[in-house]
C-alpha cells in the first residue's frame, strides 16, 4: 500500500509528459543495435518521463509487441522490467508487466529466458494474493503448456514462487502442472524441472512432499538421460532435509544408493560432489550404515573424475562423522582408501587429496597423525606432480598445530628446493607465494640456514614475473623478521647486485629497494640504499636511469628533507636533462611529486 501511494504521487504530475511518446519510442527502435541497447538500458528514464499511466497504456504494449530483437536488447529489457513496479504505478498495477515478461520467458536464448524468469520471480512477490491467482498463476499455466520447450522450461522456475500464496484448489493445479513437466517429452524440460525439484519441495506441505515429490524424484533419478538423473541428486539434498528421519530410509535411500552406483560417471560424480550436503541431510545413523560404504566406493571409483571429487570431500566427510565413533570409522574405513589415493595414477586425484589431507590431522590427533598420516604427507611431498607438493605445502599450518613442523622439515626442504627450481615458472611462482607463510612456521633460523639462498636466487630468475614475486616476497619477509634481520641478511646481497653486468639484475636492485625501503625504515634507506641508487644514476643503460628516477620518487617520502635537498635533488635535476626522453620524463615526474622544483 505504501509504495502504491508513493507511485500515485509520482503519477499525479507525471502525465503532463514532457516528451511525445513517439520520440521516445523512436529511441527504442533505433536502427543501430548499440543505440537501441543504450535506450533499453535507460528504460526507467523513459518510463519516468512518460508517467505511470502512459507507461502502462502505451510503453508496455509497445514493448510487448516488438519483442523480436537482438538477444542482447531482450536481456536488458528482461532485467529492466524486474525493477519496474514503481514505474507502472506500484503493486496494484504490477501485473501490467506480465505480458512482456511472458514473451521474454519464451524466447530461445537461455540467458534472456533466465533473466525474464528472475524478473518474474521478483515481481511475483509484489502481487497481492488475489492478483497472483488472477494474473500470475494463469501465466505460469500458459507457459507450462506452451508448444515449444522454452516456455515450459521457464515455467519450472515459477511454480515455487506462487505456490505458497494461492488457494488450495490452485495449489492442486500447480502440483499437477509440475508433475506433467517432470515427465515432459523433451529432456530440456525434464532437466529444468529436476533442477527446480528441491526448491519446489521446500514450499510444499509435508504430505505432498511424501506423496508427489518422492515419486517425481524417483522417476527423475531413473530417467533415461544421465543429465536428468544427476540433477535429481541435487534435489535429494533438499528433499532429505525436509523429511522426518524415520521416512528417509524408505523414501530417499533406495534412490540415493542407486545414484551412488549409477552406470554413468556423471551421476556418481554429482553424488561425490554433493557428499557433504547429503551427509548432513540424512543424518548420522544413515551416514554410518550407508554413506560410509558409498563413500569408500566413490574413492575407489573407476573414473578419475569421480575419485577426485570424492577425494576433495575427505576432510569434510570425516569432520562431519558422528563423534562417538568417528575415529574408528576413519581408521578402519576411510584411511585405507586414502592411502591408495596417495599413489593414484591420476594427478588430479592426488592433487585433490593433497589439498585436504592435512586437515585430517586435527581430526585424528597427534599420535594417529604421526603414525598414519605423516608417511602419507611425506609421500605426497615427494610426488612427481608439482601441484600435489604445492597443495601439501600450502596447507602446512594444519599439521603445524597438531604435531609441529619439525616432524616434516627434513622432507620439506628437498620438496621446496625442487619446486623452487621447477622448470615451469608458474610452479616457481606458486612456491614463492608460500614462502612468507613457511618462514613464519619454520622460524628465522631454519629460514636463514636453508631457504635464504633460494629467495635470493629467485631475484635473478630469467622470468620477470618470478623476479617481481621474489621482490615482493622479500618485503613480506622483512615485515615478518624485522629491519635488523634485513640489514644483516638481505640488504647487502640486494645492494651487491647493483654492480651486476646484467642491467636486468641492476634494475632488480632498484625494484627491491622500492619494495623494502618502507619496511626497513629511514635509517637503512638513507644510509645504505640511497647511495647505491644515486650512484646508479650514472648507469649507461637508460632503463636503469629512469628506474633510478622512479625509485627516488618512491623512497623520497621516507628520507629526511636534508637528504632530499642535498642528495636527491641534484641527481634528479641531472637526470631531468638526460639525453633520453623517458629518463627526462620520469625525473621530471619525480621532481614534481617530491616538490623539489
Amino acid at each position, binding site marked *: 500500500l*505504501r*509504495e502504491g*501511494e*508513493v507511485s500515485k*504521487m*509520482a503519477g499525479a504530475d*507525471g502525465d503532463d509528459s*514532457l*516528451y511525445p511518446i513517439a*520520440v521516445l519510442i523512436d*529511441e527504442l527502435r533505433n*536502427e543501430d543495435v548499440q*543505440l537501441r541497447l543504450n535506450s533499453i538500458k*535507460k528504460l*526507467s*528514464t*523513459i518510463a*519516468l*518521463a512518460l508517467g505511470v499511466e502512459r507507461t502502462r497504456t502505451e510503453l508496455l504494449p509497445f514493448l510487448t509487441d516488438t519483442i523480436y530483437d*537482438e538477444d542482447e536488447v531482450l536481456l536488458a529489457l528482461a532485467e529492466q522490467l524486474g525493477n519496474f513496479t*514503481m514505474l507502472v504505478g506500484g503493486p496494484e498495477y504490477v501485473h501490467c508487466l506480465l505480458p512482456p515478461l511472458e514473451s521474454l520467458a519464451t524466447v*530461445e*536464448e*537461455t540467458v534472456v529466458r533466465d533473466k525474464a524468469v528472475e524478473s518474474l520471480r521478483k515481481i511475483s512477490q509484489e502481487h497481492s494474493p488475489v492478483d497472483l491467482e488472477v494474473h500470475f498463476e494463469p501465466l505460469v499455466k500458459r507457459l507450462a503448456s506452451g508448444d*515449444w*520447450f522454452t516456455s515450459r522450461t521457464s515455467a519450472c522456475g515459477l511454480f515455487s514462487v506462487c505456490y505458497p500464496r494461492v488457494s488450495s484448489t490452485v495449489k492442486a493445479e500447480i502440483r499437477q502442472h509440475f508433475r506433467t513437466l517432470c515427465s515432459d517429452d*523433451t*529432456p*530440456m524440460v525434464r*532437466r529444468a524441472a529436476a533442477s527446480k525439484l528441491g526448491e519446489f519441495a521446500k514450499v510444499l506441505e509435508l504430505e505432498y512432499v511424501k506423496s508427489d515429490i518422492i515419486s517425481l524424484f524417483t522417476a527423475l533419478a531413473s530417467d*533415461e538421460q*544421465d*543429465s536428468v538423473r544427476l540433477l535429481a541428486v541435487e534435489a535429494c539434498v533438499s528433499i532429505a532435509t525436509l523429511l522426518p528421519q524415520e521416512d528417509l530410509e524408505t523414501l530417499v535411500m533406495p534412490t540415493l544408493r542407486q545414484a551412488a552406483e549409477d*552406470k*554413468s*560417471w*556423471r551421476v556418481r560424480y554429482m553424488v561425490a560432489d554433493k557428499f557433504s550436503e547429503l551427509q548432513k541431510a540424512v543424518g548420522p545413523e544413515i551416514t554410518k550404515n550407508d554413506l560410509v560404504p558409498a563413500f569408500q566406493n566413490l574413492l575407489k571409483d*573407476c*573414473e*578419475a*573424475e569421480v575419485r577426485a571429487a570424492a577425494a576433495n570431500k575427505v576432510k569434510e566427510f570425516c569432520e562431519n562423522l558422528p563423534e562417538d565413533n568417528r575415529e574408528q570409522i576413519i581408521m578402519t574405513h576411510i584411511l585405507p582408501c586414502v592411502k591408495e589415493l596417495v599413489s593414484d595414477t591420476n594427478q588430479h586425484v592426488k592433487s585433490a587429496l593433497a589439498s585436504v589431507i592435512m586437515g585430517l590431522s586435527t581430526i585424528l590427533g597427534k599420535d594417529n597423525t604421526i603414525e598414519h598420516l605423516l608417511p602419507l604427507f611425506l609421500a605426497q611431498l615427494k610426488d612427481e606432480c608439482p601441484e600435489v607438493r604445492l597443495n601439501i605445502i600450502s596447507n602446512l599450518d594444519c599439521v603445524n598445530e597438531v604435531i609441529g613442523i619439525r616432524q616434516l622439515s627434513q622432507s620439506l626442504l628437498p620438496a621446496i628446493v625442487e619446486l623452487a627450481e621447477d622448470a615451469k615458472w608458474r610452479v616457481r611462482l606458486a612456491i614463492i607465494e608460500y614462502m612468507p607463510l613457511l618462514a613464519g612456521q619454520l622460524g628465522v633460523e631454519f629460514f636463514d640456514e636453508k631457504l635464504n639462498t633460494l629467495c635470493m636466487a629467485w631475484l635473478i630468475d630469467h622470468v620477470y614475473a618470478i623476479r617481481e614475486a621474489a621482490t615482493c616476497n622479500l618485503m613480506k619477509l622483512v615485515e615478518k623478521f624485522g629491519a635488523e634481520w634485513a640489514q644483516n641478511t638481505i640488504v647487502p646481497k640486494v645492494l651487491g647486485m647493483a654492480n651486476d653486468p646484467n642491467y636486468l639484475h641492476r634494475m632488480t636492485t632498484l625494484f627491491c629497494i622500492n619494495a623494502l625501503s618502507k619496511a626497513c625504515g629511514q635509517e637503512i634507506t638513507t644510509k645504505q640504499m640511497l647511495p647505491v641508487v644515486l650512484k646508479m644514476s650514472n648507469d649507461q643503460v637508460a632503463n636503469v636511469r629512469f628506474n633510478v628516477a622512479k625509485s627516488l620518487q618512491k623512497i623520497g617520502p621516507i628520507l629526511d628533507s636534508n637528504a632530499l635537498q642535498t642528495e636527491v635533488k641534484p641527481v634528479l635535476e641531472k637526470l631531468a636533462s638526460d639525453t633520453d626522453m623517458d629518463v627526462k620524463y620520469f625525473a621530471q615526474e619525480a621532481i614534481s611529486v617530491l616538490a623539489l622544483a
Partner: protein
Amino acid sequence: LSSSSLLLHHHHHPWSPIMETTKSMRRARQRRSHSSSQFRYQSSQVELTPLPLLKDAPVAELHDLFCKKLQQCCVLFDFLDCVADLKGKEIKRAALNELVESVATSRGVLIEPLYPEAIKMISVNIFRTLPPSENPEFDPEEDEPTLEASWPHLQLVYEFFLRFLESPDFQPSMAKRYVDQKFVLQLLELFDSEDPREREYLKTILHRVYGKLLGLRAYIRKQINNIFLRFIYETEHFNGVAELLEILGSIINGFALPLKSEHKQFLVRVLIPLHTAKSLSIFHAQLAYCVVQFMEKDATVTEYIIRGLLKYWPKTCTQKEVMFLGEIEEILDVIEPSQFMRIQEPLFKQIAACISSPHFQVAERALYFWNNEYILSLIEENCQVILPLVFATLYRVSKEHWNQTIVSLIYNVLKTFMEMNSKLFDDLTASYKVEKQKELKRERERAELWRGLEEYQERRMQMLTEAARNQRNLQERGERGDTLNPSSPQTAHSDQPEPKPSGASSGAGESAT
C-alpha cells in the same frame, strides 16, 4: 574396409576441413587413449574357449553356432590393461571377424531368432557411458582426440552391425522389434564420442537405420533436435554435430513438398541457432549445406534464413564473420530474384557494415561478392535500392581503410556502380556531405533529448525519495498508534532538529508528541 567406403553421399559434401584433421587424428598417440566405465560392471570374467569355425559347420548347426559366437562376443575385456587376457581378446576378435565375414558374404544366415541375439551383442558392446574427456577444454581443431581403447573389438562390432543392416537378408519388420526407440537414443548419444573413427561408423549406421526403419524416422529427427538444442543452449559441447548434420543433409534432400511445419521449425529453431555455437568452424560446411538444401527445396524459407543469420551475425569473432559471409554467398548463388528483393535491404546494411570492418579479411570477403556474376546481376537489377544503402560506407572506407587491397577493391566496386547507374552515383556523391551533416544533427538532437530526460529523472527521483520519506514517517506514526498532528506532519520528521538534549534521534519524532 577402407574409410572412404563408409562415407555417405560424398558426391555433394564439402569434406576438406574434416578429412584433414581426421587423418592426423588417426596418427594420434595411442597411449593417451581411454576406455569407458563399462568394464567395472561386468560381474565376473568368463574364460572364453574357441568354438569351431563357421565355415566348417554343417548347415544344420550353422545358426546355432552363429548364435553361440554372438553370445561369446558379449564378453567385455579390459583394454586399458593391454596385456590382460590376451587369449580371450584374440578369441573374441576372431569370432567377430567370422561374424562380419559371414553376414557380409553368405546368404540365408540372418534368420529371425538371430535378430535379438545380434542386437543384444551390439548393445552390450557399443552402449556405454562415454568416459570423461581427458582434456576438459578439448578443442577438436587443435587437440588430438582421445581414442577408444577397446577399438580393436569395437570396430568389428560396428562393422558387424553395418553389414547386418546392409545384408540383402535384412528384414526391417523383424529388426524393428529390437532396434527400437530406446536403442536409437543410446546410439545417438554415442555421437558424442571423441574418437572420430567411432563417429564415422555411427554416421553410416544411423543413415542406414534411418533409411530402412521408417517407423523410427520421426523419432530420430526429434532426438537429433534435442541433441542440437542441448548443444546450443545448454552445454556447447557435443563431438558429433558435424556427423549428425551430414546425415540431416541427405534427409532434407528427401523431404516432400510442401515442407511440413515440423521441418520449417527445425530450420528456424535449430539449424539457424546452431550458427551461434563457439565451435561453428567444425561443422559450418555441413550446416551451410543443410541450409542451402532447405532453400533449394522451398524458396519461401529464404527470408527466414537470411533474417536469422543477420540476427545471429557475429559481433566480435571475425573468423566466424568470414564464415557467415561465405554462407551468404552460397545462399545468394541460388537465391530467387523475388526472394532477393525481400531481404536486400537488411542484408546490404550488414554487408556495408562488413565492408567497413577494420579486419581486412572480413572486408575483403564481403567485397568479393562483386566478383560473383549472379550476385552482380542481382545488384544491378536492384541498384536503385542497394547503392544508396552502401554508398556512404564505400565512400568513407575508400578514404580511410588501412589496407591497400581493400581500398583498391572498393574503387573497383565504386567504378562498377558508376557504370551501372551514373546518374544515381553522381546524385549520391553530391549529397554525401549534406547527408553527413544531417546525421551529425540527428546525433546532437539525440544527445539533447537524453540530457533532458536524465535531468528530469533526477528531479523526479528527488521528489520521490522525499515523498517516500514523508509517507514512511506518516505510516510509522500511524502504526505506533500515535496521534498525528495533521496540520504539521513535518514537525514530526526525524530530519527536523528536535529541541531535545538527549534521547534517541530516530525516535525524536515520537517524543515530540
